[in-house]
């Protein structure tokens, strides 16, 4: 595994990013843009499921925001992988980084459970769905905090 992470650090693209004065801050900014969009759409969707903004039609509202959230997650995944790549072995050994990855997996599992129940006909306003929405809010917000702490711990 150490060799794998060291190999990532040696890729030409990654070496360029490591030494760049411009590309790295741009990737960093795009990561912030992605996680900002992701967190905003997650919060709005979950709050709608929990009963806020009742004047907005739920189905259309959720469809739009889910599309934004999935696009933003893809952007965060690409830019985050690039930020990780410059010091892959260092980050991979940090407990706070591993905590963030675990939280993302939990948030993803929570999303899949929600989608299965929605397909199975559960009303979004129901008790189980509300619990999943609260879990989603807590997990994604924790991902954000864990991510920010990578720069401050370790």
């Amino acid at each position: 595994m150490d060799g794998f992470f060291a190999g990532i650090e040696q890729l030409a693209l990654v070496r360029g990013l490591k030494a760049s004065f411009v590309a790295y801050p741009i990737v960093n900014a795009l990561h912030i843009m992605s996680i900002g969009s992701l967190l905003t759409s997650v919060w709005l969707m979950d709050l709608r499921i929990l009963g806020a903004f009742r004047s907005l039609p739920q189905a259309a509202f959720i469809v739009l925001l889910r599309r934004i959230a999935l696009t933003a997650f893809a952007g965060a995944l690409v830019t985050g992988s690039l930020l990780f790549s410059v010091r892959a072995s260092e980050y991979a050994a940090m407990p706070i980084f591993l905590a963030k990855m675990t939280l993302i997996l939990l948030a993803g599992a929570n999303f899949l459970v929600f989608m299965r129940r929605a397909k199975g006909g559960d009303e979004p306003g129901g008790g189980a769905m509300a619990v999943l929405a609260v879990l989603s809010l807590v997990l994604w917000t924790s991902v954000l905090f864990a991510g920010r702490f990578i720069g401050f711990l370790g």
Partner: protein
Amino acid sequence: MLSPFIRGATLAAAVMLAAGTAAYAHHGWSWTQDGFFELKGRITAIYIGNPHATLDVDAKGEAWRVEMAPPSRTIAAGFTEEVAKVGDEVTAIGHRSRDESEKRMKAVRVIVGGKTYDVYPDRVPPA
């Protein structure tokens, strides 16, 4: 139904922010002591790159992490991968972590091979 939840979420956010303020930070200088600190040792690893440059230093058997400036500032100070190599003697002057059990410091000046590199020129000790 919503407002107790929002109150709960706001409280949770406040607690997380407070915890964040209490934790030491490697960004910036808030995690370092005010007084100057000098570390002498042998370089075991050099990283000149984003998000900021670091040296790993063996000082009398203790493994230290010396943090420097972002790569643009570090290279502007003349400190590049060409001027130092693993095994070189190094003197780092700067500020150590407030938590003295943590073998970590942030350097404002690095001396290698008889040459001085001021990676934070506006923070170096008065001559």
